[in-house]
């Protein structure tokens, strides 16, 4: 039983980690939480569904479309909705992102809300379970887990080896100093929102066969992703992955060994306990300075 629960916890945790990665990315660069992140993911998921199921395009094309769509959505959101408030009061930024979340949910309800209650997304891999000895796995869950690891690896490379990645890190460390050395901080912010949203697009295409698609899915995923980011440390990308996996595993173990009604609360109890002991999360550093 333990091995089943651990594996199921890891595969569910990978979903949370994928969401958390985008949240952490934006927070690192801008010092703000994007409350619309879950709904950006939801829109990207519907976009992938439209391309793959609606138009019959290959899965990888649909995934690329979701990533590109997410990127554009994030960039537009920053340019139109957030730029004016990013340098002001933090409350205004939070309200702007919350407002965007509601707008996106409304758009999804009107556009895709009349097709089915939950849209099924065909799995990328054959759906039959893989049995290795005592271990039983669903291939799509493996894909999500591998996807989360791949996205995190890509980010590590991006921050380490690209000029843009280094500029983002510099901005996150000290926006004023970054501005003094010629980095256009506003553009970095836009890039952070765009890349965060693109990550959501990749995550949406990966997890849609597991989660199904519906207009209200974004908020639930955001809450779990945010919890994962807080647990791992809001400034740490590996922390996002660790936090996501930890929450998934805690939920699975609580459901298996305590009671299924303990699943929902167990993760938050674990977070509270962790934050009492480590207020910055498992791998978190000091909060970024806002521009």
């Amino acid at each position, binding site marked *: *039983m333990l091995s*089943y*629960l651990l594996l*199921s*916890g890891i*595969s*569910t945790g990978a*979903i949370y980690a994928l969401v958390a990665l985008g949240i952490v990315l934006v927070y690192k660069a801008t010092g703000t939480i994007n409350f619309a992140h879950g709904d950006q993911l939801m829109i990207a998921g519907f976009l992938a569904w439209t391309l793959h199921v609606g138009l019959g395009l290959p899965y990888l094309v649909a995934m690329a479309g979701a990533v590109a769509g997410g990127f554009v959505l994030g960039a537009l959101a920053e340019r139109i909705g957030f730029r004016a408030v990013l340098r002001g009061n933090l409350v205004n930024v939070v309200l702007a992102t919350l407002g965007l979340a509601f707008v996106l949910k409304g758009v999804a*309800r*009107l556009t895709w*809300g*009349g097709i*089915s*209650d*939950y849209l*099924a997304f*065909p*799995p990328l891999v054959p*759906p*039959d*379970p893989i049995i290795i000895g005592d271990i*039983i*796995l*669903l291939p799509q869950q493996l894909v999500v887990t591998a996807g989360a690891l791949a996205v995190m690896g890509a980010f590590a490379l991006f921050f380490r080896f690209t000029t843009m990645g280094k500029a983002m890190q510099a901005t996150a460390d000290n926006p004023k100093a970054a501005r003094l050395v010629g980095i256009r901080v506003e553009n970095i912010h836009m890039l952070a929102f765009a890349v965060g949203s693109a990550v959501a697009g990749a995550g949406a295409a990966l*997890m849609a*066969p*597991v*989660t*199904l698609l*519906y*207009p*209200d*899915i974004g908020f*639930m995923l955001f809450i779990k992703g945010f919890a994962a980011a807080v647990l791992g440390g809001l400034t740490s990308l590996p922390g996002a992955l660790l936090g996501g996996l930890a929450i*998934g595993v805690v*939920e*699975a173990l*609580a*459901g*298996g060994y305590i*009671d*299924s*009604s303990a*699943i*929902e609360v167990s993760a938050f109890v674990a977070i509270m306990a962790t934050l009492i002991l480590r207020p910055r999360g498992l791998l978190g550093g000091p909060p970024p300075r806002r521009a």
Partner: protein
Amino acid sequence: MPPAPRVAPPVNPHSAPAETEPMRRLSLLVSVAAAMLAAATLPARAQGAPGVTADSIRIGSFGPLTGPGYLYGRLVMNGVEAVFDRVNAQGGIHGRRLVLTREDDRCEPAAAIAATRKLIHQDQVFAIIGGGCSNAALAARGEIEQASVPTVIFAAVADGLTTPRAPTIVSTALTSGLEGVAQVAYAQQQGARRIAVVSMRDAWGRSRYTPLMEELKRRGITPVADEEVSPDANDATAQVLRLRQANADAVILLLYPKPGAVFLRDAAKFGYRPLVIGQSGIADPAAFEEQVGVPGATARFVTISQVRFTPESPEMAGWREAIQAKYPSDRLSVFNMFGIGSAQVLVEALRQAGPNPTREALMQALNGVTNLGTDTYGGPITCTPTDGRCNRTVVWIQKEPGGPIRIVGTTAVE
């Protein structure tokens, strides 16, 4: 005695100057024009009853028109409208056309209250046929009761809509309590000895869970497992393992399609295939099979339908054509069929209410509906002044993997 001198009324220096003759004429003309405009825009009330004119009866409907719940609103209303069109084509009800006014409640309680207020006070509807989602319809119940508007619930299943009895509300939808009774009866009929319950514990889930547990207790059955799955769950491994450990041979599933699909997917992962008994929240087994996405996982899944035919049945040919003619992008669905059955009950009651209908007469007619056959419901419809749960026939449906949807039985709940 000389007549008393006529005294000019005192002039208020702050009042408007006295009107001149041309101005008086102008204001008279404006008043007449305004009255004519009002007469043209407001429905004439031939009989004094709200929503009834010399040539029409306005019926209101509320339910989700947008969002994922639209199945229980827009599609059901399309079925209602198809019936109204047929009635109108045959001359209407005592010469009056039926007109449907729709309001979107998005499955949200606050929106449902606003929608019913608008229908009752602004649109002045004669009666209501609606209620797609339980929580929203429950919230609207107070408004309906206060205004004493005859109302037929067409899809929402909460027992609280009809129990305790609201004098002006009847339901042609199966209620959650009746479905629970039928679920337990079906499990026993199929020879299940170790029954488990898997439920959501939100308001929707509770409205089913509580009467189901009461029914199990009444029959002396203790569930071998009682598990919870959240509405947004993406994994049910823990619950499946616990059920497997408990060796449950039948699972009563009180879940929305999404958590239901996750549960069946994870059960299939472990090769655990008990009899799974759903309810009308999962009313489309074809869509559900697609949502589960694992071949064969739904092979032992049966669920409740309110209607005795599938949309593809030959008996539904006429309604298939009617729906497709009016809504070219739609194909007849079970949700349309809920609306067809419900509207036929309302139409019959409107006929019985006579040529000069009042809300009281309509309500009396609705409460007197006895053994009324409809084109879609599983059994006859009977309402009484003491029981507004008019539909008591549960239809069991199943979809063999890759095959068509089949009716596998009915349960009449006394």
